[in-house]
């Protein structure tokens, strides 16, 4: 079947890769410099919190992109993608133990790749089952497989370590570059390196005949079939490769945290992948990276100051589904025709008119959520409620009235401004169209 793939291959537009690759190398340089922005020169140490967060972003970027190979590029909605991330982690932690014990003469830098390959083997088995179906049946099979592995991970001790998970030590003294990986920043650079190898590989895959056929099978699988391709086979290969990259991400997480628990195969992580990819945007290649960065930021940043970050993610997600189904990347892409016409400037005032009531509503909403959750959860944990820098007494009526008022009135204001903005946007777009026609 791979011969049919090659025989019908269309010329891939390789020249179009130059722009994205240049941009990726720019981001690469930025990522290398990033930890030094949070370097504490008086103590001579990196900020541990920032390093962990950036490392997490790197892994999640790979994970989200590998999920988008299914969701965005092949139109397959999976609810069990964490299986490959988690199994990659479990494989890597066992390999790490073996390498540390001396029975496996492999440098640490290569381990994520081996873990990814093992994960790909699993993806080949599961993918053979799942990719025979598409649409809802595919979603249900992947959910079944996800729940199956998640339940098995708690149940079996020999490989998964039961509820305690499996832990190991990453300082195995076997490195390509003579590094010990005793410091977080060394691990961070390992993650950056693997992230960029994976991102470049996945970017390349989108331009290959396989990537193009995945798009074709997503858009119209019957027509792809008439052209002589086997959509099942295309789905299968795409699924297996996506398992490879998810496994690499999982392997990196095993090296970073030196422990893998059943959380890493859980449905919650699969859901997280979906949230990241959808919020970031499925159509643009960089969308999932954007989503991964944003969600990780919310996860580790917001969860420090509030224990209801899931509400915010949920509301953000529902808002995206309702108002911006193309995600953040789609929102940015909407502006490109205006930018080309040099008409971004007239949008500044309308944006301010949107952002101000938006902020009022947001503050009101955050206030309502925090007050509510403080009464039931925060108070039980013996915490004190501090909102926007001010200590607040949640038992009096005043803060409740203020935040509810801000939320309701701000929402009303936002709704009115939103309608006005919508008509303005439509008018600007309509204004742009005849110009385009005249130019042609």
């Amino acid at each position, binding site marked *: 079947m791979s011969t049919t793939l090659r025989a019908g291959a269309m010329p891939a537009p390789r020249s179009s890769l130059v722009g994205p690759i240049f941009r990726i190398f720019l981001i690469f340089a930025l990522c290398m410099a990033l930890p030094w922005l949070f370097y504490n020169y008086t103590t001579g140490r990196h900020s541990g919190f920032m390093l962990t967060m950036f490392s997490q972003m790197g892994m999640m970027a790979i994970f989200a992109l590998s999920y988008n190979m299914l969701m965005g590029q092949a139109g397959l909605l999976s609810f069990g993608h964490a299986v490959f991330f988690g199994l990659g982690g479990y494989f890597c932690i066992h390999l790490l133990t073996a390498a540390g014990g001396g029975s496996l003469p492999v440098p640490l830098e290569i381990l994520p790749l081996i873990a990814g390959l093992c994960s790909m083997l699993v993806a080949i088995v599961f993918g053979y089952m799942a990719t025979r*179906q598409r649409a*809802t049946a595919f979603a*249900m*099979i992947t959910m079944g497989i996800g729940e199956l592995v998640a339940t098995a991970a708690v*149940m079996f001790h020999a490989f998964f370590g039961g509820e305690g998970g499996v832990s190991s030590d990453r300082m195995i003294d076997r490195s390509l570059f003579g590094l010990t990986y005793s410091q977080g920043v060394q691990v961070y650079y390992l993650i950056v390196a693997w992230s960029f190898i994976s991102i470049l590989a996945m970017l390349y895959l989108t331009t290959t005949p396989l990537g193009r056929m995945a798009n074709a099978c997503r858009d119209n699988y019957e027509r792809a079939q008439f052209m002589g391709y086997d959509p099942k086979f295309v789905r299968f290969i795409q699924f297996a490769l996506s398992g490879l990259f998810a496994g690499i991400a999982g392997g990196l997480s095993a090296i970073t945290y030196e422990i893998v628990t059943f959380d890493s195969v859980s449905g919650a992580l699969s859901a997280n992948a979906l949230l990241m990819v959808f919020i970031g945007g499925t159509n643009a290649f960089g969308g999932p990276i954007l989503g991964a960065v944003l969600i990780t930021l919310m996860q580790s940043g917001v969860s420090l100051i509030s224990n209801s970050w899931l*509400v915010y993610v*949920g*509301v953000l997600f529902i808002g995206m*589904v309702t108002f911006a189904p193309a995600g953040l990347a789609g929102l940015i892409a909407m502006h490109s025709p205006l930018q080309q016409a040099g008409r971004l400037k007239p949008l500044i005032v309308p944006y301010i008119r949107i952002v101000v009531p938006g902020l009022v509503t947001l503050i009101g909403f955050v206030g309502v959520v925090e007050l509510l959750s403080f009464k*039931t959860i925060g108070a039980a944990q013996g915490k004190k409620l501090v909102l926007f820098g001010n200590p607040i007494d949640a038992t009096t009526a005043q803060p409740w009235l203020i935040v509810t008022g801000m939320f309701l009135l701000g929402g009303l204001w936002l709704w009115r401004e939103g309608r006005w903005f919508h008509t303005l946007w439509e008018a600007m777009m309509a204004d742009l169209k005849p110009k385009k026609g005249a130019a042609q």
Partner: protein
Amino acid sequence: MEIVIVSLLNGLVYGMLLFMLASGLTLIFSMMGVLNFAHASVWMLGAYFAYEVSRFIGFLPALIIAPLLCAAVGAAIEVWGLRRVHHNGHVAELLFTFGLVFIIQRSVQMIWGMLPMPYRVPAALDFPLFTIYGANFPAYRGFMLFISALMLLAIWLMLKKTRIGLIIQGALTHPNMVSSLGHNVPLVFTTVFAGGCGLAGLAGVIGGNYLVTESSMADAMGPIVFVVVVFGGLGSLGGCFIASILMGMIQTFAVVIDASIGDVLKPIGIALSSETLLGEILTVPMARIGPLLPYLLMVFILLFRPRGLMGTRDT
């Protein structure tokens, strides 16, 4: 023998509870093509509502008020949520309900806290109904069976004997045709969505004190209900019923069987150790493997019969 009869009864009670949830979900799924991820969350809401109502007025009013509240929640979701995203396709609708799961769960935690609710079986029903082989069968389980059988009868009568039932049945298999015949399909959609959520709410009322009313109950129930719906087959309430009872039986029977696959192999002369993963899979007792079985069954049925047990069209 007594184990078999007690497990049969318990399996029936659990299966009927599952059916009450799954019947609403399968109606919504077959008709609107929306896989309502938030269905189990509405079930959880039903249990919490019932707890609140029964605290102030009593259990019997809660049996009516809580499902009505859940139906109202369902109608609100359909009218203000799903209809707005409908033009973006089924995936958008599915993702919308998926986002609702997080919001409902966290909202429940914010309003009622993380701890389980003291939602108990009403005192009037808290006595043993009869005794088989020394084991008591609580009256409340009998009451659950009674309520779910009543609901089964009501659904059947409504679908088979009324005009709205006729339209719903038509819309199950040929939604476009029904719409072409001039029926108000969006209204039917809202009715079915609200009705399904109401059923889930009813299941929450009687299931909340049978199981435990806590904020993680939706997460535990959600995947199982999906398994039932997919296993039973799209557009078939009969298949859904069989699948519910089957899953109920599997879950209760697996708990009482202490043998493993390894025990079956032993007489043939194959001895296994639980040191390796494969050995562990074969030597783990059935009772612990129980939670895995529904998912295994679902994966297998989708592989070999994607339309489910009695489904009329592909999932």
